[in-house]
């Protein structure tokens, strides 16, 4: 779908955006206002009105995507237009500002808009890049199957460690009960877990096993083998979780910042005319 968004209808929305940008830039270049270019000239109001309409319309995508079969345009139309018109907004709003920035609600609205577009651009990148990486990394079946594999290994470990000393069995228990995948937002994004109980168990069992002999040594060797496979599997699952998190995290910026932008935009417009 990610490719089809960009290519959709033979770049229709790219062409529309480029046309809007071309007209805006040419108008800005020709326009010779009194004083410095700013949002208060006729072109400033025109570009500002266009930008405000685009922001509200782009935000409406959040509503539209929850409705199915509404309106003449397909959801792909909306998504494709959302990407291209959203990017063009960066130029239109900058021209509206006349490159005048300050410490005020107006520049705050602009900054929020830039952050929203930036997070959206990252989202587009994530949707284009990570799904492919995920399918490569998973390799063996669905995520559910992989989890079954991990659980099965935990069970195997109990079985193997049954006659091994309590300290080894304790590690096996911890590896089962305390191993966690993902966790906090940061843990999911990092794709690693430096305090993984299974990794810890593997390392310690490996050390302890050096002092064993006979049947115990044999069991410990088998235990290390299973634990190592489990750790390797966990590492791959965590990497997969990381890609998923990266595909989702940008929305945690994109959505709240969009809503904040709508508020700042409303204040920007009201305050400009309140103090006309």
């Amino acid at each position, binding site marked *: 779908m990610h490719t089809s968004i960009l290519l959709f209808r033979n770049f229709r929305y790219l062409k529309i955006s480029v046309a809007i940008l071309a007209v805006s830039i040419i108008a800005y270049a020709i326009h010779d206002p009194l004083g410095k270019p700013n949002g208060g000239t006729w072109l400033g109001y025109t570009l500002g009105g266009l930008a405000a309409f685009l922001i509200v319309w782009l935000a409406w995508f959040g509503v539209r995507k929850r409705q199915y079969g509404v309106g003449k345009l397909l959801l792909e139309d909306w998504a494709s237009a959302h990407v291209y018109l959203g990017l063009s907004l960066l130029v239109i709003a900058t021209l509206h500002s006349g490159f005048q920035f300050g410490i005020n609600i107006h520049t705050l609205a602009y900054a929020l808009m830039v952050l929203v577009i930036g997070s959206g651009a990252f989202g587009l990148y994530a949707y284009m890049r990570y799904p492919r990486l995920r399918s490569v990394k998973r390799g063996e079946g669905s995520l559910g199957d992989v989890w079954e594999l991990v*659980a099965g290994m935990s069970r195997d470990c109990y079985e193997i460690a049954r006659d091994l000393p309590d300290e080894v069995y304790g590690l096996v228990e911890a590896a089962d009960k305390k191993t966690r995948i993902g966790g906090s937002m940061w843990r999911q994004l990092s794709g690693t877990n430096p305090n993984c109980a299974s990794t810890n168990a593997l390392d310690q069992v490996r050390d302890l096993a050096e002092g064993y002999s006979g049947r115990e040594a044999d069991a410990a060797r088998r235990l290390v083998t299973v634990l190592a496979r489990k750790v390797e599997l966990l590492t791959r699952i965590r990497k997969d979780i990381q890609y998923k998190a990266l595909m989702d995290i940008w929305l*945690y910026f994109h959505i709240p910042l969009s809503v904040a932008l709508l508020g700042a935009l409303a204040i920007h417009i009201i305050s400009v005319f309140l103090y*006309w």
Partner: protein
Amino acid sequence: MQVLVRYLTKKRDGAIATRDELVGCETVNLGRGTDNEVELPAAGVLLHEGVLHKREGGLFFEAEGDGSNNISFDGKPIDSGSVKVGSVIGIGPYDVTVLPPEGEAEIALAVELVRPIGDALETLRANSRTRLEQSGIGKRPLAWGAIALILLAFFVWPVIDVYVIDRADPDLLKSPLEMSTDSENWPLAGDLAWVTGPISGPHKFLAQNCSSCHERPFVQVQDDVCTDCHAEIAHHVDPKVHELPEVTTALCQTCHKEHQGNEPIIRQDQAFCSSCHEGLQDVAGDTKLANVSNFGSNHPEFRPSVVTDATAGTVERVLLDTANWPVENSNLAFTHKKHLNPQGILVPGQRERRVMDCADCHASDDADYGFSAVVMEDHCGECHQLNFEPTVPTRLLPHGNVETVVESLREFYGNLALRGGAQVVDAPAVVRRRPGGRSLNEEERLEALDWANKAAEDAGDRVFAKSVCGTCHEVTRTGDGPLDYSLAPVIVTDRWLPKGRFDHSRHSSSDCVDCHAAPDSDKATDVLLPQIATCQACHGGESAVDRVPSTCIACHDFHFDFHQPMRPFVQNAHAEEG
């Protein structure tokens, strides 16, 4: 002895399956390992938990190991003790219940996994959070929080600050509640966040008080806000002559854009003027002004206001045309060449010749961007002394009109004659008598006054001739009577280019003669202005790259003092009459 171990397993449907094992042993070991008589193969059980053996009077359970066992007796956390039929030994997740002896077994035990620790998959799932939504941070709360913060900080608080909190009467006694809503106690004026850009330099003293200009919400700043201070600001064109509402009725802020940073609020751009003045006939058809669009490349030659006939009081704008240079007729005889003689000029009472320079007469006047007027007494009088009586050389005539001069002569000689003591050789004795003696009789007085009249008229004839007044002025006899003289009226030009502004002080690095050819001017009628080419040698238009970029406002004002104030607006006279 024989021990019956009955393993109970709860099935999915709730029924209990049993599996009996008969073990022969001396003592009954319990634990995880396969070497125990009672195997408890679940997590949470040590390899060897304890041992059950017979003692006198019954069974006894004794825990093994380092005390990390998780053992209870009938629910009590004790790890060793006597065991009777019905006792329940809790070991980790298992309950081991002592049953009555059964068959050949002396001891019977029921083993049931009553506290399962959970399946590995469920444990892993329970431990893990693999979606960002599970992390406890939601997009919705973030969104609501962000917009609430922005609305509160940048709209609710400013509106309260501006429209609710009373800034007046800070000295009023206030309750704590009132104090808390007094903006003076707040760290920040809320509406500062609404400022679109820094206010211009001259208006910065208003920067903290938005409502001093923004009087009513959603209404543009009105002109009366500006004219509160700038009451004298005058029209660009006379609204009685030109019907140009876009110039005469435009709001101040149409041109004077505030909040543009430290830019001057006065328009500097060339296009602001040239948009009309490059084709002025289209805007004001009856204009006499020439078109202009760029000082460097398209500005008409200067047309100074020249006194072409001071006698008639005629002042005309005449082009500085090399082939037909304007001639000034100020009725004053003067040449710069004579006065700027490099050898110097003679000064009465001094042996040395004095070399004069421009500043001897033309004193700079910063207030008027030019020079103060040349005053005869100050700048000419040292040489051109207005003395008239050789025996009283220090006595000078006032530099004024003919009547004043005549009056002064008559007063001087009348006073001299009646007071006596005159040194004039051919005067009668009564005039030359020693002053302070007896009173004159009628006859003597008449004789003295008769002489005084004659002396005044003789002096007048001398003064009004070439030697004194006539040196500079055109003197004509107006009748046959004594002292019937008149002087041609003099008009000296104060501003040659009154619609422009030239700041001499900013050109002090140039010599006067670089622009004004005074040393070679041997006629009083010479107009010593430079042509525009002289200015253009250094100054170009707005976008000049090899000249000083100069826009219209460098020399011209928009609001002309000689027009009426712009506000309150007076309706176009033509329109009223029409």
